[in-house]
């Protein structure tokens, strides 16, 4: 009976630099998450009352959008990595379509978030309203900026797929961009239950 041996890769996918960025982001957001969780202990009633103002459905839709967008990026990367020499151009075109879907979902997230911010601001809420809203606006706006950057990165990667740039041997760029997008997704899946759901 033959035995399949899966060898471990020596290094993670993507560039070394993207991992430095990812570790810094994890550390920064990690501290902000803990800041929120421990500040809540000082006034639980205020946090619970303020949290009830938030639109949980909007946070839920945001999560689904980001998860699905991440899935599209996985499909784009897999398409490029599994390409054969004779169909590199076709696989880049297919990756380009997956990336377009991911970008559109990223833009949907941004639009949904802007609507949510507009609703919050129309109620006269701002950074100095109370500690909960200070954390809520800080966390969600900081994350929003990461999504904007992620969309720009995906857009640039897509431009390179248009010229058939990526193949199994040359996919560091698309891997790094994909990693950044998954990081944005990872941060949101913690942010959503922490700020919108847990009470």
């Amino acid at each position, binding site marked *: 009976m033959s035995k399949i041996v*899966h060898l*471990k*890769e*020596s*290094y*993670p*996918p993507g560039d070394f630099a993207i991992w430095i960025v990812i*570790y810094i982001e*994890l*550390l920064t957001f*990690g501290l902000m*998450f*803990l800041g929120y*969780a*421990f500040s*809540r*202990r000082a006034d*639980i009633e205020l946090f619970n009352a303020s949290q009830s103002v938030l639109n*949980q*459905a909007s*946070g*839920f839709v945001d*999560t*689904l959008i980001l*998860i*699905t967008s*991440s*899935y599209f*990026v*996985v*499909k784009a990367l*897999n398409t490029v990595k599994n390409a054969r020499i004779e169909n590199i151009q076709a696989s880049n075109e297919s990756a380009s379509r997956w990336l377009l879907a991911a970008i559109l979902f990223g833009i949907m997230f941004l639009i949904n978030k802007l609507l949510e911010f507009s609703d919050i601001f129309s109620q006269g809420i701002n950074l100095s309203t109370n500690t909960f809203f200070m954390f809520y606006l800080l966390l969600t706006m900081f994350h929003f900026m990461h999504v904007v950057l992620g969309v720009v990165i995906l857009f640039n990667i897509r431009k390179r797929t248009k010229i058939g740039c990526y193949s199994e041997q040359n996919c560091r760029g698309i*891997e790094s961009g994909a*990693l950044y997008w*998954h*990081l944005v*997704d*990872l941060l949101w*899946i*913690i942010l*959503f*239950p*922490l700020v*919108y*759901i*847990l*009470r």
Partner: protein
Amino acid sequence: MKKRAELIWIVLVVFTIFTYFLGQFDFVNTLMVGILLMTTFIKGELITDYFMSLKNVKLKYRMIPTIWLAAVMSSIAVAYYLPIQ
């Protein structure tokens, strides 16, 4: 596995729906906080292992986000469960 990405996506969606319904119907009690944090940890692990492709890299690289996730989730659990003086 050919349809692994699809399977992971479905699991992530199911956990997200579970989280949303807990919040929507106000089922978040002391026990549920732990369960929610656990499902969030699993979601994070699925993203790092399969979407970020860390499943097949050396353990030391795979463990960094896992330790981060465990540290953040357990600290949040402490903040929620520790009795207030």
